[in-house]
């Protein structure tokens, strides 16, 4: 059994194993070559207030990606966590003045909560969970599709602490008539005509014991750019539902028909192995994206790293799913012809990612393609070939890196 400390010490030493050109490492940190040239050209490392330099995709609204190097820790540091907004009005929120309105036609006792009430009147619950943008890796779609051209880092793993949504809804007297819970945050659009970013989740998901109104992230208040003072945390589901700067929760007896549910964040029906259906929002051909697909990422070595012939190389990475739990990660060092089991790191919780590593004792002279493939407890794995979809969601094509030895 590997302790977390030993596992981390080992994988962090790995970063030094390669001896690729330092200049190349900097260029690669802005994203893989497969990204559109314009996206790579517009990227730069830049720091939002309170954040370390991240990969700037767009300034306004702010979209910033976490570099691969910052995904190597078990829990992604708050100041390195990715940032994603849809509309440009991002207000600073004063925690003392902040109020959460809980209402809607499917509850009996509409009421308002302060942050102090949320902290003191409900049992604090902490859950480790991956927060991943639906469109993480969109920039790798071939052919490319429009949208934020993310590389690998529109994701992170954190410990989220807060009150259970179901307890707050119960306090407000939620009724059996609730079909969806509609959430809104403090962000707003520039123009009145632009649809405000409002989302809904099925009532059954809102009543799940793991769905939280989080006020802490990794033991600290949420960073402004990640939803201060309170965000919705929906473990297992993509981050589109994790409403930031939460201001309003509505229990609704009817499906919410806003743009961001009816027109956006939808996937074609029947092409992904969806387990969690969102029946009240299903249409004939499309359905809302729900839970994350099984996925994995090679964090080291990096693509195009160079090694000495005969050198021992340690691969490391992460694997995650929607909460069934990762049971195995298989590694190929020959482009996918043969596979061996990687060693899994400690279990950080079923919604968290699982770190893994694999030792290659002696790398022969030549070019080698390493591939990783994760499998979860339900026997689900990753796709070999991209599953095309118009909005560029659920990219879980096996990650490959090619290295040179000699």
């Amino acid at each position, binding site marked *: 059994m590997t302790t977390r400390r030993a596992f981390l010490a080992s994988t962090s030493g790995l970063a030094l194993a390669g001896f690729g050109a330092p200049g190349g490492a900097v260029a690669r940190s802005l994203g893989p070559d497969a990204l559109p040239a*314009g996206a790579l050209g517009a990227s730069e490392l830049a720091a*939002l207030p309170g954040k370390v330099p991240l990969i700037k995709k*767009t300034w*306004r609204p702010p979209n910033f990606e976490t570099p691969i190097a910052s995904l190597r820790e078990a829990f992604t540091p708050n100041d390195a966590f990715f940032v994603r907004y849809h509309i440009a009005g991002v207000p*600073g929120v004063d925690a003392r003045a902040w109020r959460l309105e809980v209402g809607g036609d499917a509850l009996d006792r509409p009421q308002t909560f302060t942050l102090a009430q949320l902290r003191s009147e409900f049992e604090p619950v902490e859950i480790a969970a991956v927060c991943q943008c639906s469109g993480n890796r969109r920039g790798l779609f071939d052919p*490319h599709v429009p949208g934020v051209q993310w590389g690998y880092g529109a994701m992170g793993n954190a410990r989220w602490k807060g009150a259970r949504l179901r307890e707050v809804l119960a306090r407000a007297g939620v009724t059996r008539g609730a079909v969806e819970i509609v959430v809104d945050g*403090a962000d707003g*659009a520039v123009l009145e005509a632009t*649809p405000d970013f409002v989302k809904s989740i099925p009532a059954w998901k809102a009543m799940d014991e793991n769905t939280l109104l989080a006020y802490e992230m990794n033991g600290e208040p949420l960073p402004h750019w990640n939803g201060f003072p309170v965000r919705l945390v929906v473990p297992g589901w993509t981050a589109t539902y994790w409403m930031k700067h939460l201001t309003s929760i509505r229990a609704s007896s009817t499906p919410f028909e806003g743009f961001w549910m009816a027109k956006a964040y939808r996937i074609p029906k029947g092409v992904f192995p969806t387990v969690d259906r969102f029946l009240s929002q299903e249409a004939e051909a499309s359905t809302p994206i729900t839970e994350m697909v099984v996925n994995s990422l090679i964090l080291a070595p990096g693509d195009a790293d160079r090694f000495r012939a005969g050198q021992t190389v340690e691969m490391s990475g992460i694997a995650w799913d929607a909460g069934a739990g990762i049971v195995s990660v298989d590694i190929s060092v020959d482009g996918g012809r043969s596979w061996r089991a990687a060693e899994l790191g400690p279990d950080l919780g079923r919604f968290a990612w699982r770190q893994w590593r694999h030792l290659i004792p002696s790398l022969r002279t030549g070019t080698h393609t390493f591939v990783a493939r994760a499998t979860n407890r339900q026997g689900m794995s990753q796709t070999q070939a991209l599953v095309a979809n118009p909005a560029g969601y659920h990219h879980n094509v096996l990650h490959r890196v090619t290295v040179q030895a000699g």
Partner: protein
Amino acid sequence: MRTIAWLLLLASSGAGAAEDAVRLADGPGREAVEANCAICHSLDYIQMNSPFLDRTGWEASVTKMIKAMGAPIRAEDVPAIVEYLNKHYGK
């Protein structure tokens, strides 16, 4: 929630100044693009989504901005905007 308080935050965060450094290609239509698109988003959105959209793709993007996002682009400005985007940021 709709508010304009964010304007102050953006100004103080420096994002406003940083996005001023984004420079689109020179050419006819650039002013119309800047005047219309930058109301709601920084112009690096255009660079980022290039060069893989054809004329139809850029037309669809502009139409989405008008119909879905409520961009107040005058109908007579649309052809010049699409022409510019396709010429400088098309595939």
